[in-house]
C-alpha cells in the first residue's frame, strides 16, 4: 500500500528539479521545432503498429511535449501516460437507436483518432485534398501542429447499457450513476452522458481540434451533452513530472499513483479479469473514469489567510510539504503533533481525509485539470477543478472517498460540485481494432 513516492523518495526528488526546467514554460510548445517533429514521427513509427510504451513511458517522450503518444496498446492512452497540460473533455448522447450505425461511428472515430494522435489529419487529404468543391474532411486548425502528446480516451456511461443497443446484460456489476453526496449542487446539463471522449494534449488547439473533428464525424449518431475545457493539469501521473498547482495555488497530486508503479496500478486502476467475469469481461484491462466539475469560490478563498489555507489543505502553500514535514515528498504523518499538541495535519484537512491511510487503503489515479469558464455574471470567476480520476471500481473507491470528503472536508466551504459523471473506459485498441470492440463484439 506504499506509494511510489514513499518507497522511492530519492528518485522522485532527484527527478523533480530536472523536470522543472524541462517543462517550466509553455514556450516549449511552439510549432516549428523541426528536429523535435522528426523525432516524433520516428517515435510513433516504432510503436504505432506494434505496441505502445506501456506502463513506463520513455523519459524522452515525457520531456518532449510535441512528441506523439502511441494510440494502440494493452490499455488506452490518456490514463497512466504522462498527464498533458490541456484538456477538452466531451460527453455525448447517442441519438440513434441503430446499433450498427453506432458501431460504424466508433470505427470511424478510431481511424480518425489513430491519425490525429500521430499528428496526421483526421482523414487522408482532409485539409485541402478534396478538390475546390469538396468540403474539407479535416477542419484544419491543427494542420501545422505536431502531435503534441495528444491522447484520445473513450468511455461508456451507464445509460448506454439501458437496452437501446442490446448491452443491458453487459453492464459491469455496480457500474451505475454516482450517488448524490452531501453538498452537491449538480446541474443536470453538466452530468452524465452515453459516451465520453477525453482529449489531452500539450497544445490546446490540438485537443480542441480532435474533439471538434470527432464530434463532426459523429453528427447523426451522437450529439454533445456537455463539454469541458481544462488548461493546466492538476496531477502528475509519472515520477518524471513536477507536481502542478491547482487554482487554490497549492500543489496537487503529490501522492498520486504513478505510472512507474505497475503493481499499484493493477491494484487500484486497471480492471482485472476476475472483476468482470461473464458478460462484462469486455471491461478487463479497462478503467472507470470519474469526472466531477468542482467550482471553487475563488474570491472567498483568496481572502483567506495563509494559515487557514494551509490548515484546510494540510500542506504548506509554497513548497507543498505536508504540515509537520519539511519537503513535498516527505511522508505524510497523520499522527505527528504540531506546536499546540494537536495533529499538525488537522482532522478536517483535505489531504488527511483523502489519504489512503484514512480510507483503508483506497487510492485513485487522479488526472484532473484546472478550468476557468470566464465569469459567472455576478463578477466572480467561474473556475475550479475538473476532477478526473481513474479507478478499478468507482463504487468501491471513489464513492467512499467522496463520502468521507463530503462529510468533513474543511475545503467544502470553498468548493461545490456542480457536474458529475462516470464512464467505463474499455481496454486499449489493437492495430486494426476499434473503440468498444470488446463491448460490441
Amino acid at each position, binding site marked *: 500500500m506504499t506509494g511510489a513516492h514513499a518507497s522511492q523518495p530519492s528518485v522522485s526528488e532527484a527527478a523533480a528539479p530536472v523536470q522543472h526546467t524541462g517543462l517550466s514554460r509553455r514556450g516549449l510548445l511552439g510549432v516549428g521545432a523541426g528536429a523535435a517533429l522528426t523525432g516524433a514521427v520516428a517515435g510513433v513509427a516504432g510503436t504505432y503498429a506494434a505496441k505502445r510504451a506501456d506502463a513506463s513511458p520513455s523519459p524522452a517522450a515525457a520531456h518532449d511535449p510535441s512528441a506523439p503518444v502511441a494510440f494502440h496498446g494493452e490499455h488506452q492512452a490518456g490514463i497512466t501516460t504522462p498527464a498533458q497540460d490541456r484538456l477538452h473533455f466531451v460527453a455525448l448522447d447517442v441519438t440513434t437507436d441503430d446499433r450498427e450505425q453506432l458501431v460504424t461511428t466508433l470505427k470511424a472515430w478510431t481511424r480518425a483518432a489513430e491519425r490525429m494522435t500521430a499528428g496526421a489529419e483526421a482523414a487522408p*487529404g482532409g485539409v485541402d485534398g478534396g*478538390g475546390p468543391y469538396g468540403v474539407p474532411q479535416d477542419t484544419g486548425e491543427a494542420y501545422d501542429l505536431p502531435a503534441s502528446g495528444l491522447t484520445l480516451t473513450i468511455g461508456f456511461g451507464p445509460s448506454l447499457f439501458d437496452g437501446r443497443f442490446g448491452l443491458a446484460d453487459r453492464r459491469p456489476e455496480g457500474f451505475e450513476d454516482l450517488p448524490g453526496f452531501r453538498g452537491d449542487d449538480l446541474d443536470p446539463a453538466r452530468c452524465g452522458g452515453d459516451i465520453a471522449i477525453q482529449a489531452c494534449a500539450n497544445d490546446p488547439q490540438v485537443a480542441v481540434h480532435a474533439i471538434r473533428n470527432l464530434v463532426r464525424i459523429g453528427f447523426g449518431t451522437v450529439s454533445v451533452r456537455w463539454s469541458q475545457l481544462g488548461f493546466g493539469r492538476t496531477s502528475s501521473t509519472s515520477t518524471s513530472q513536477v507536481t502542478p498547482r491547482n487554482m487554490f495555488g497549492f500543489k496537487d497530486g503529490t501522492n498520486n499513483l504513478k505510472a512507474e508503479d505497475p503493481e499499484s496500478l493493477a491494484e487500484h486502476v486497471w480492471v482485472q479479469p476476475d472483476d468482470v467475469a461473464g458478460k462484462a469481461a469486455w471491461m478487463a484491462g479497462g478503467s472507470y473514469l470519474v469526472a466531477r466539475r468542482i467550482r471553487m469560490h475563488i474570491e472567498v478563498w483568496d481572502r483567506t489567510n495563509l494559515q487557514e489555507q494551509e490548515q484546510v489543505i494540510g500542506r504548506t502553500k509554497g513548497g507543498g510539504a505536508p504540515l509537520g514535514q519539511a519537503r513535498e515528498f516527505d511522508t505524510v504523518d497523520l499522527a505527528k503533533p504540531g506546536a499546540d499538541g494537536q495533529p499538525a495535519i488537522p482532522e478536517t484537512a483535505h489531504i488527511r481525509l483523502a489519504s489512503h491511510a484514512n480510507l483503508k487503503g483506497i487510492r485513485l489515479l487522479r488526472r484532473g485539470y484546472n478550468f476557468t469558464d470566464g465569469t459567472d455574471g455576478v463578477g466572480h470567476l467561474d473556475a475550479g477543478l475538473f476532477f478526473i480520476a481513474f479507478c478499478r471500481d468507482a463504487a468501491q473507491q471513489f464513492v467512499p472517498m467522496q463520502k468521507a470528503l463530503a462529510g468533513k472536508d474543511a475545503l467544502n466551504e470553498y468548493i461545490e460540485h456542480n457536474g458529475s459523471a462516470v464512464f467505463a473506459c474499455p481496454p486499449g485498441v489493437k492495430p486494426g481494432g476499434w473503440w468498444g470492440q470488446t463491448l460490441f463484439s
Partner: protein
Amino acid sequence: MRITPAPAVLGAALLLGLTACGGSDSDEGTPGSGGAGAIKVEASDTDCKVARTEAPAGTVEFAVTNKGSQVNEFYVYAKDGRVVGEVENITPGLTRSFKVELTEPGTYETACKPGMKGEGIRADFTVTGSSSATGAAGSDEKLAAAVAAYEKYVAHEADELLENTEAFTAAVKAGDVARAKSLYAKARGPWEEIEPVAESFGDLDPKIDGREDVVEEGMAFTGYHRLEKDLWKDGLQKDSGAVADQLLADVEQVVAKAKAVELNPLQLANGSKALLDEMATGKVTGEEERYSHTDLYDFAANFEGSKQAVAALRPALQERDPELLKAIDARFADLDAELDRHRTGDGFVAYTQLSDAQVKQLTVTLDAVSEQVAKVAGVVAA
C-alpha cells in the same frame, strides 16, 4: 447565403468530374493486360520509388510496399491538388494494392507519406493517350435535367410567392389584422423555399426580407418584417398600406427575375446546403420572426427547398455516390419526423412554445442533415 456566380472553372471541373466517374473499366493498365500489371511502389521513411512514372489513360493499379519503419500512405494527386486516389495505413512490411481511375491524360503527382503527414515525397506521374472516359454524356444529361427540373420548381414557387403575397398585402391594406396575421407565414413560405435564388437580386432582398437591425444605414425598414412588427407589436401604422404596396411591387420584380434565372448544377448543390445553413443560423434560433414567432414555418420552407434541390440532383447523385444519397435520405427522414412533432392544425406551433430540449433536438437533427448535404457539391463538381 446568396447563390454566387458560377465560377469560371466550373465547366472544366464538371467535365473532369464526369470523366473521373465515368466508370471505365478499360483494360489498359490493369494487371495482365499489355504486360503492364500493377505499378510497384517501394516506400520507405525517406524514399518513394515508383517503378513506372507513366501509364496510359484508364484504370491504373499501384502496389505499395512499406519498407520503412513508419506507417506510410500513398497518394495520387491531380494537377489542382485534388486527391484522386489514396491508400492508407500501410504498416511496415505490408504491401497494399489499389486502383485509381486516371482517365484524363496529363500530369499527376504521386506521393508517399511516411508518418501519414506532411506534403509527402512527391514525383510527377504522366498519363498518356486520349481520354478513356465513358458515360459522360449520360451523366451530363442527368445534370442538365436536374437544372431544368429545379428551374421549373423555382418558377412554380415564384408564382405562389406572388399569389400569396397579393392576398397578404390586400389584407393589410384592408386593415384586417387577423386575416393578415393568418396569411403572413404562408405568404413568406415560397420565399423561404427558394431563398438562395430569391435573395440573389441585389437590393431587393433587404427591401423584402430585411430585419430592422439588418437594413443598412439610410435604408427604410420595409417588407415582410416591417409588416410583421406592425401586425404583432405596434399595430398598423399610417404607412402600413404603402409598405404593403411597395412589398408587392418588389416581390413582382423578384418573381420576374426568379422565373428567368439560369442556374447550374453546382448552384443547386450549394443552394441545398445554403438553405440548411439559413435554418441553423436564423430559424432554429428564433431570430427571423421575432414578433410573429412563426420561425418553424420558415424552417419547414427552407427545408423543403433544400430537399427539392437534392431531389432534382437525385439521378446524378444516384449514379455518382449512391451511399451519400442513402445517408441524406435517412437524415431527411429524421428531420421530417422531428418537424412533424411540432405541427398543429395545418401549421406549426410558435417558436416560443418550444422547450430548450426541443430546440436542441431540432438543432442536432439538422446538424446531421447538413453534414451530409454539404458533401453534395463536391460530388456534383468532383
